[in-house]
């Protein structure tokens, strides 16, 4: 069989290659470049090998932010996934309330991230904030600019408010797509609500939940704007997560080498953990 070979077709790919090169490959390579050099002002660079990587991996400051980051992400996932699933299960499947619920759920997702931070900043203000006033009225000594615990509480509450909707919408879409026949069969088989959830809804939501967990994992692992606006990483370094630490190193101290090494390590951690999540959650399916 004769195949037409036309190498000029590669030109069609060029725009995409250029786009990807400019917005991903070239910046990434610049970072790689920085991570193996020592820089001084006015464009003087010296080869430094893996020194920055060693430094970052040994740095206690990095360990501390990584630990905070892991704790934050774990807390977020532990709250948002079950909560989102529960809300999705409680939402009506048909009728006029469906659109009301969907709009309400979508609202937090439409607000710019820095506005979310600002909103919660105002809410939590010790003197006039609705949140702090309520907590004070309930007898709690709440001051997020002073107490690390209170800061964590506020940051987590903010993220739950902002992002649970995403889990809800994904789960809801998954639930709605389950054919009625499954529920009818369950009724005929005499299944209790818990069994319906365990053997029909949960298995059918598996892919949707995997996506939801992956998205929430990656996003929360890279959280920056909302926290910076709300707490600025404080009090002290209590809410300084990886990306905040990174920005402090790169732009605050202008340590380009260590910052570049740190962002590469950061990137690899996210990649590795996403891959792990994905394989673990998909493994059962193929058995």
């Amino acid at each position, binding site marked *: 069989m004769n195949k037409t070979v036309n190498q000029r077709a590669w030109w069609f790919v060029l725009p995409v290659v250029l786009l990807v090169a400019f917005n991903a490959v070239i910046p990434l390579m610049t970072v790689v470049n920085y991570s193996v050099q020592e820089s001084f002002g006015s464009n003087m660079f010296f080869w430094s090998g893996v020194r920055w990587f060693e430094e970052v991996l040994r740095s206690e400051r990095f360990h501390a932010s990584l630990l905070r980051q892991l704790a934050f992400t774990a807390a977020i996932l532990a709250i948002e996934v079950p909560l989102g699933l529960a809300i999705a299960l409680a939402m009506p499947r048909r009728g006029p309330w469906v659109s009301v619920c969907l709009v309400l759920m979508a609202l937090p997702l439409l607000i710019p991230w820095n506005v979310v931070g600002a909103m919660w900043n105002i809410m939590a203000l010790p003197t006039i904030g609705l949140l702090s006033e309520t907590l004070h009225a309930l007898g709690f000594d709440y001051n997020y600019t002073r107490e690390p615990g209170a800061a964590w509480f506020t940051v987590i509450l903010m993220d739950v408010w902002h992002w649970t909707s995403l889990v809800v919408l994904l789960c809801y879409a998954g639930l709605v797509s389950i*054919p009625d*026949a*499954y529920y*009818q*069969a369950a*009724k*005929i*088989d*005499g*299944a*209790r609500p818990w*069994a319906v959830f365990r*053997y*029909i809804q949960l*298995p*059918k939501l598996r892919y949707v939940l995997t996506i939801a967990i992956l998205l929430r994992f990656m996003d929360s692992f890279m959280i920056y704007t909302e926290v910076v606006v709300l707490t600025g990483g404080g009090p002290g370094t209590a809410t300084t997560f990886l990306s905040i630490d990174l920005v402090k190193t790169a732009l605050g101290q202008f340590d380009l080498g260590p910052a570049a090494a740190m962002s590469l390590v950061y990137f690899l951690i996210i990649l590795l953990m996403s891959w792990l999540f994905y394989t673990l959650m998909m493994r059962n399916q193929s*058995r």
Partner: protein
Amino acid sequence: MAQIQLRELRHSYVDQPAADSDWALKRLTIDWADGGAYALLGPSGCGKTTLLNVISGLLRPTGGQILFDGRDVTDASPEQRNIAQVFQFPVIYDTMTVYDNLAFPLRNRGVDAREVDRRVREVAEMLELDDMLRHRAAGLTADGKQKISLGRGLARSDVNVIMFDEPLTVIDPHLKWVLRSKLKELHQRIRVTMIYVTHDQTEALTFADQVVVMNDGEIVQTGTPVELFERPNHTFVGHFIGSPGMNVLPCEIAGGRATFAGLPVDSVNAGAYRGDGGRLELGVRPEFVSFAPAGADDGIPVRIVKALDAGRHRIVETEHADHKIKLLVPEGEAIPGDTAHVRLAPERTWVYRDGWLVTGKGAAR
């Protein structure tokens, strides 16, 4: 097992049904004997699935009663009615093994483990699933999955009725026949009342002892396959069952005798017509129409339009005064040239009034 009776059953999906077309089911009254194999046959949208869901309790009827063995179950849940239903698409519990799928309805009802095991193995043996009990149900082929959904019904020994809602839709053609005969064999073995919904006449006629033909929310005829074929109660049954369908020709009746386009035609029931108006039609199946021998001039003169080879016979389409008459000519018999006369078998030619068979008692329904 149970006898199922429907009394004046009607259902509408509209809140305030007013027009006739608002009703998905229009006053059905029918008795289904214990242990029978019934097929519910009709075109898509005629109310078959609605009727099935009303019987299984998934849908509450707008009016009327459903009785199982004389007991009113209209308000009972599907679980209380103790019925089984096989859906169009296989419904299985993906994460469970085949064994757990079959055991599920029993375990939900608190049957003890030893009894569960005995029933599951018995059902698996009947359905030839025994060598895959430990497999995950999700890994089976479509026909295997349909067997599981059927098995979940069979596992309950006291099930009142098993209902099938076009269960072979997603099954490969060569396996349809296998499953169909398996089903027939199962019915003969366990004698549970079975109701089989389909729009495929072959499926209905091979599965059932009694076929219930529905059209537009009404039961048009109930009968054995032979009855439906030889004495259709409504021109719809004549059209819907048989391939090609029944010939329907306009006619007039005078003095107990039918005439079609001015030509006298003998029929079984023209004498039963009481002259009370209505649209009159003659119905005769292509199987009961034949060509008169060359030279004979009795019957209806026709022009031959076309002939279609259908294997064992040919379908010949003829025409008289713009009315089409189809007939079957067996393999090997000659078809006359351009024109000929056709004869309608008098003992299989029926008169219909407004679509319904004319009987001594008035309308056939």
